[in-house]
């Protein structure tokens, strides 16, 4: 490897050719501040438009200061990252950004979590020397995401996520000069665009320009209403990330404390979306085997591969962008919606209340879930199966507001019957998990044999597109996995072109799967956080006594008492859905 020798802040260092000053400095333990720059190393995502100019450094012999994020090191380079010239320039840049930024930090949704605010604090900004015009745009509220572009600093991270990673193409920089802003086409609202509400723009926004629609107050009101029975479900990825909001190390599992906190918040029943994940496997796994058998028996009307359908961002994506392929995804509803449907029928009957008197709250790592639970097809007589979906971040706020010392909570269990789950359900939280869970059940159902080992290492990892062939006792099943919608698009295009050899494909909209969801604690550019959460998910799985969905005793009981069998008429009615062509619903009203 060709290397280059240079000096940064009087420190002699050697780096690989092609390394930027920013990376070289970080390797040497010198932290040059950045704002627009973002590098999610483990996910191979990088944003460096060199737009903000916060990272400028002095390079001896060069007339102007250089942006460290895009300037490559050269032999013998002498770099100074904090002399008076650099510090003054950096402060001026920051003050100019702040001069066109609202100063309502105290009441901003990102208060305490804003990279611009942190920087202003670190730089010791106490006065704004530049007064001038401020830009004003209308606020754009969609079912899941709020755009408040007065707070946009044009870092372009959201644009990069939306276009390059997700290939959704909703956001673009528009207009020029002072008027420039990141917006959907024709500056329409998000809900008139092809936005999937995946929330990856929110996950990377350094300021309060992109935030989630907050339902915590609705939840507080429901909990205070004595006429309502409030039932809560919590998604698998939440337990692997919530601890971060309370100062715990990334990857700390807080399952027991989570259940305890929800109970102290006053939820009448503390249940688990994992139960519904097991149910999803029963339905989706049976559908997979059914389609596979019919296809292999020569029924050409049965399309393969079957695609998973638990991810609402992904559902929105294919409804908008691949409406001609809506017969391919499984018809199984997502675990969130299966839970709601079962809670408001089976469980409501069990405890003898009407669905109108039950409020179902879901805790999700996801913003698209907020939209999903508002879809018309998931309501009965206007009463939604899931009333409110709040993110991991919102739950953390709720716990803090309620004076609960989270770190001191004991470990408690979920309630029954909708709180019992298996290891197969837990791994829904990471890329590769849903299909591994499906394989564990489908294998045993199809072959009638017990799996000697339930861990399918070949399906795990963080590579964007993964392939594996699993031997179903002589029948090779080709499995595909994609996370990130841009990668999903590649697999879909292959299917469209007739080049796909997969029998089943798992797709997750967010890089990493739900652990990297748009509603999770903010990673602030540190992708090792997402990896740590993934590890935690597999630890939780390995520690479970039951690790296959079809062995969950309460699932078995649910079928005996209520549903009959997978794909029964009742199952179809409550647990399956249909998709809508949304390609005509955009832009022009």
């Amino acid at each position: 490897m060709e290397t280059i020798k240079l000096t940064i802040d009087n420190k002699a260092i050697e780096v690989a050719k092609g390394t930027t000053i920013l990376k070289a400095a970080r390797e040497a333990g010198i932290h040059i501040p950045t704002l627009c720059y973002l590098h999610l190393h483990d996910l191979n995502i990088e944003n460096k438009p060199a737009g903000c100019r916060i990272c400028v450094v002095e390079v001896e012999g060069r007339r102007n200061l250089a942006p460290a994020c895009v300037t490559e090191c050269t032999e013998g380079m002498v770099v100074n990252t904090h002399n008076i010239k650099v510090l003054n320039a950096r402060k001026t840049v920051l003050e100019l950004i702040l001069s066109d930024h609202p100063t309502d930090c105290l009441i901003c949704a990102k208060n305490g979590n804003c990279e611009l605010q942190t920087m202003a604090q670190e730089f010791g900004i106490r006065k704004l020397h530049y007064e001038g015009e401020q830009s004003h745009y209308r606020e754009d509220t969609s079912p899941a995401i709020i755009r408040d572009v007065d707070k946009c600093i044009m870092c372009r991270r959201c644009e990069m996520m939306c276009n390059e990673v997700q290939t959704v193409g909703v956001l673009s920089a528009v207009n020029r000069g002072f008027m420039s802003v990141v917006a959907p086409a024709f500056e329409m609202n998000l809900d008139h665009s092809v936005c999937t509400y995946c929330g990856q723009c929110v996950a990377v926004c350094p300021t309060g320009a992109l935030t989630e629609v907050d339902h915590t107050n609705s939840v507080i009101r429901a909990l205070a209403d004595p006429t309502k029975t409030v039932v809560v479900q919590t998604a698998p990825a939440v337990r692997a990330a919530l601890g971060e909001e309370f100062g715990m190390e990334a990857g700390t599992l807080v399952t027991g404390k989570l259940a305890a906190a929800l109970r102290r918040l006053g939820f009448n029943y503390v249940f688990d979306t994992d139960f519904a994940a097991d149910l999803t496997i029963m339905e989706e796994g049976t559908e997979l085997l059914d389609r596979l058998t019919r296809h292999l028996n020569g029924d050409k009307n049965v399309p393969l591969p079957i695609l998973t359908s638990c991810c609402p961002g992904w559902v929105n994506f294919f409804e908008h962008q691949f409406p001609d392929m809506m017969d391919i995804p499984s018809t199984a509803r997502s675990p969130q919606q299966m839970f709601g449907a079962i809670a408001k029928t089976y469980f409501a009957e069990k405890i003898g209340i009407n669905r109108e008197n039950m409020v179902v709250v879901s805790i999700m790592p996801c913003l698209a879930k907020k939209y999903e639970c508002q879809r018309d097809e998931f309501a009965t007589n206007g009463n939604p199966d899931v009333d409110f979906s709040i993110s991991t971040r919102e739950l953390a706020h709720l716990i803090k507001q309620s004076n609960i010392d989270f770190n001191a909570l004991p470990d408690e269990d979920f309630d029954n019957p909708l709180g019992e789950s298996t290891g197969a359900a837990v791994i829904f939280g990471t890329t590769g998990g849903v299909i591994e869970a499906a394989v564990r059940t489908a294998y045993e159902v199809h072959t009638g044999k017990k799996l000697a080992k339930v861990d399918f290492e070949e399906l795990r990892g963080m590579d964007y597109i993964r392939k594996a062939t699993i031997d179903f006792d002589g029948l090779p099943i080709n499995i595909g996995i994609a996370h990130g919608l841009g990668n999903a698009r590649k697999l879909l295009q292959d299917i469209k072109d007739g080049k796909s050899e997969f029998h089943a494909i798992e797709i997750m909209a967010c890089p990493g799967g739900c652990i990297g969801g748009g509603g999770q604690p903010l990673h602030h550019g540190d992708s090792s956080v997402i990896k740590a959460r993934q590890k935690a998910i597999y630890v939780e799985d390995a520690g479970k006594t039951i690790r296959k969905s079809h062995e969950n005793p309460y699932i078995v009981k649910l079928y005996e008492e209520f549903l009959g069998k997978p794909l029964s008429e009742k199952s179809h009615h409550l647990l399956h859905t249909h998709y809508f062509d949304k390609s005509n619903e955009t832009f022009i009203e």
Partner: protein
Amino acid sequence: MANIKISANKLDELKAVCKSFNNEKGELINVLHKAQGIFGYLPAEVQEVIAKELNVSVAHVYGVVSFYSFFTMLPKGEHPVSICLGTACYVRGAEKVIDEFKRLLNINVGETTPDGKFSLACLRCVGACGLAPVVLVGEKVYGRVAPDGVKDIVAEYAK
């Protein structure tokens, strides 16, 4: 895609333009330039067709259209008025000529009168600096235009 409100033959023409540039993403600006030649402006429907043909997002197309002042999403008037703001015209009082047009037509630069007769635009140097300040109405050139001569030009087309 939205329902296309543009006529079938113009749609074909637009698609032919995209094809003449091999439907390449990198040719977006050239395609937009030609499209504006066909339609006189770039309404949302046209941008959507171009986005689809070139396989880019509509937001990206709109980003480019809204960036360059040459591109417009507003239809031009029957008689597009362009005032040169090149250096020579500018120092000889083009700005006052613009103000007079704005006052008489009661529109801003970049807009079209409600009856669709006139639209107002600025441009840079038409290469007739000897005639500064220069005004174009359609293809016709007016030289040495003074603010008090504007009402005569407008009257010529206001019939």
